[in-house]
């Protein structure tokens, strides 16, 4: 469907190289410093503790769930923003981006106002059924989804806007229904963007701190994810905090490195 052309390797313009090196150094140096401070000898003991394994499990599960929910709602939202015209669309897009610019603790407070025990929707739900999002894994997932969903929507919308509409038109001309066109033509065409968006979304959810602690609280084994555990470890035991951070980095790299090529294919 898309024509892939392998281009000959080119030498970059000379002026770009030093700037690229500076940018890369700036990004990499803090991680080198972290490695240099790492308590290598006690690393095994630190990472085997229940506090760490609980936090790692909660982080991975909640980030995956948030990514799943984001795909479910985010792809349709991106399609609506990219392919339909309606009054106030620019405003809706700005609202979708708000969680990216809002300080996460404010996002967490806003979630509390909406879904907390005294919240807009939360109060009737709690009074009627006893259902309570905060202080639970569902609350962590909700906070993660709130901050991570925009990353998926933005990426997929950009993919949809740059995709060649003629394939969709051709499918329609050949009698495909709108749903079939979406499923068999549009979705495969923007698949790289969907993958890229999902990865960004997952990475953002994995590192989420402010909204999670404000909305869902912090309790080992129930709501304490890796970033929360790292933050608290910094208060008492810097070695443990660094060990936890390195584990979080390792998990992220394990996902980001293999996906790099698919991502770049977008």
């Amino acid at each position, binding site marked *: 469907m898309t024509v892939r052309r392998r281009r000959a390797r080119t030498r970059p313009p000379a002026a770009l190289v030093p700037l690229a090196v500076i940018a890369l150094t700036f990004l990499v140096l803090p991680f080198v410093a972290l490695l240099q401070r790492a308590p290598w000898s006690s690393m095994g003991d630190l990472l085997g503790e229940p506090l760490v394994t609980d936090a790692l499990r909660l982080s991975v599960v909640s980030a995956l769930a948030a990514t799943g929910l984001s795909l479910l709602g985010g792809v349709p939202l991106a399609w609506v923003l990219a392919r339909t015209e309606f009054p106030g669309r620019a405003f809706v897009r700005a609202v979708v981006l708000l969680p990216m610019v809002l300080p996460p603790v404010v996002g967490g407070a806003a979630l509390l106002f909406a879904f907390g*025990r005294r919240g807009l929707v939360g109060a009737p739900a709690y009074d009627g059924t006893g259902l309570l999002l905060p202080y639970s894994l569902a609350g962590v997932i909700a906070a993660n989804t709130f901050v991570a969903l925009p990353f998926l929507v933005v990426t997929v919308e950009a993919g949809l806007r740059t995709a060649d509409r003629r394939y969709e038109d051709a499918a329609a001309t050949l009698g495909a229904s709108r749903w079939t066109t979406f499923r068999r033509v549009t979705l495969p065409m923007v698949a790289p963007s969907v993958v890229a968006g999902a990865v960004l979304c997952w990475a953002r959810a994995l590192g989420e701190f402010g909204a999670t602690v404000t909305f869902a609280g912090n*309790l080992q084994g129930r709501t304490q994810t890796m970033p*929360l555990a790292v933050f608290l470890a910094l208060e008492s035991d810097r070695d443990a905090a660094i060990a936890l951070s390195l584990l979080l980095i390792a998990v992220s790299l394990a996902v980001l490195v293999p996906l790099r090529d698919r991502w770049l294919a977008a």
Partner: protein
Amino acid sequence: MTTSLRALLAAVTGAGMLTSVACGDGGRGAAGPDGADTGLAGTVTVFAAASLTDVLTEAADAFEAQHPDVTVEVSFAGSQSLREQILAGAPADVYASADGTDMDALAAAGELAGHPRVFARNSLQIVVPAGNPGAVDGLADLGEPGLLVGLCAPEVPCGRLGLRALAEAGVTPEPDTEEPDVRSLLTKVAAGELDAGLVYRTDVLAGGDDVEGVALDPAVAAEIGYPVATLARSDEPDIASAFVDALVSDTGRSIVESHGFAAP
């Protein structure tokens, strides 16, 4: 509801922020309005625990009024992070901490010029939302699984102190959350999202009309002292000592008490 929303927003946006307050006009040689001449001139930098923000800001203003040629700069953050900054060579003249262990660590590292002096005291209280919807009347309620209960995380001073008080009272707590700092715990109680929390008495006062305090049984009332000391690497040891003296003086004591702390 509106007030509690505003309080909640104010609390979350302020949480964890390192506040630096520069007081005074910084001018040298100007004669003070009350004409006090103490011969002190220069700038002194005070590192103080975040919970002391109101007290130290007022104390700095009072000190500058008394010593027209002195500028006091106060930097507020968590005791532990200020301790790390001082150990890393940050230029500070005075350190006021919320936790004796941070002060002890600096003493052990030879960073203190004088002995730490306790200038304020604080104690734990149970904080509940206005109206006390959970009908909480003592520490035993914090072990009630049916109530939404918050504590400070055991890694931070108010959490350590809280666990000690609960142990002394023979209560096994059933927390729904262990908040990373005392203000975020207060925020959740003020919003009515928790039925009870264990915070400092000054936090209950800071919570205003959104919260109520329930005093602990005096037998287990956990108390902390706030120590202040001059630092060994100070460039202005005379001003630093004068500032510490002022803090433990009668004037300092009345400032401390006006903000809900107890005098030493």
